């Protein structure tokens, strides 16, 4: 059973600085990994490296069977979903338009958009411009996007922040679904509680190094 993600001695430097230093990381199908650590320790960078959004410049890495240091990543990227600190939407488009854009780019059934919007509770707000909708609404839209793309690898960078309790259980459902389909999840959080009861394995990062694995 090949892992979905595998980093061996992976390193990342940005701005002439070593941000991640010989990190070993592995995630198998159906697994949920938790990542914690102080501010600026390298959690987001780790997720970005896994998603091939930041290139690793030391060690080796595999993402869904593709060598992270080669062009093989281009085709597999589409099976990765990333919910980051700040919602990645096109502010001048409406909520519905944002999702349509996603579907048209990625290919898929536009009919699902309505359903998904209802599921995340935005069925009535479809025509509001993304940048004039509330932060949590934008977060919910990202959940909707992930529902539309149903990815094999789900990367959550404090995805619970900004969501009300109802919407938070939405994220839980998302995690369950991904895991259920044999996918994997990596979630970053500062709240030990969040991680404890959701993750199979936990990584603690300090200063760009994995200091603890449980």
């Amino acid at each position, binding site marked *: 059973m090949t892992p979905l993600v595998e980093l061996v001695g992976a390193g990342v*430097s*940005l*701005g*002439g*600085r*070593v941000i991640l230093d010989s990190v070993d990381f592995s995630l198998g199908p159906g697994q949920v990994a938790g990542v914690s650590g*102080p*501010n*600026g*320790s390298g959690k987001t960078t780790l997720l970005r490296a896994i998603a091939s959004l930041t290139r690793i*410049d030391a060690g080796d890495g595999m993402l869904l069977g593709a060598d992270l240091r080669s062009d093989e990543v281009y085709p597999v990227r589409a099976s990765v979903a990333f919910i980051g600190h700040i919602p990645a939407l096109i502010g001048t488009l409406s909520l519905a338009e944002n999702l349509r854009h996603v579907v048209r780019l990625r290919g898929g059934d536009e009919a699902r958009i309505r359903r998904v919007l209802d599921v995340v509770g935005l069925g009535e707000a479809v025509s509001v411009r993304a940048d004039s909708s509330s932060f949590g609404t934008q977060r919910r839209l990202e959940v909707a996007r992930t529902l539309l793309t149903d990815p094999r690898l789900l990367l959550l960078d404090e995805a619970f922040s900004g969501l009300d309790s109802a919407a938070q259980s939405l994220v839980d459902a998302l995690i369950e679904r991904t895991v259920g389909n044999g996918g994997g999840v990596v979630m970053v959080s500062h709240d030990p509680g969040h991680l404890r009861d959701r993750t199979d394995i936990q990584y603690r990062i300090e*200063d760009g190094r994995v200091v603890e694995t449980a």
Partner: protein
Amino acid sequence: MKRVQILLGLAAVGIATGGWLGLNAPPDALQGEYSRIINVHVPSSWLAFLAFGVTAFGSIAWLIRRKPKWDRLAASSAEIGVLFTGIALVTGMIWGHAVWGRAWDWGDPRLASTAVMFFVYLGYLALRATIDDPTVRARRSALLGAIAVVQVPLVYFSVNLWRSLHQTQSIRPDGSTMPDEMLRAMLINVIAFTILYVALLYARMGVAKAESEADQRGASAERVKPPLVDEVRDV
């Protein structure tokens, strides 16, 4: 003795001889003393092309090999190239002022295209100056360096094609009508300047290396630490 110093020495000797010959050669019949400018003008013009060629080479080499030294080669050569292009422009304009009565002549495509080339690489250097991250800087400027080298001949071609349709009042067919002594002096200068270029290139690359190491040390110091919560009250 270091390689750079040897080269600099050679260049000095060469330029001294070239300069001496140039100053003592019989001046050009038409232009008088001004024709001596050719001893600086032509060598620098030639170096401009050489230097930018090297920049292109370094850029492409970096794209293939991803070794910092190629980036340093490209950057250093571009700086020196810009310097010599500037000299070619200025000496040219002085010369033009003397022999044509005006510093610039739109009748000669070479002028416009030189100027454009000059700015292409100023842009290249400006780009480098704006980027702090060494890897990003290397990547982007390597790409620009590669694009630029395709573009220089394109500009030359288009501008020449542009002129060719209109009656050219050309400067000179070529240097052939120059007195032989002047020509010899110029050739010696061309060689001497080339050695000088190589010397400068070595020197600049050395400096660049030192700089990048300094940056590394500076950057790696930066880290986020735990806050001092107790002191919040009294700051």
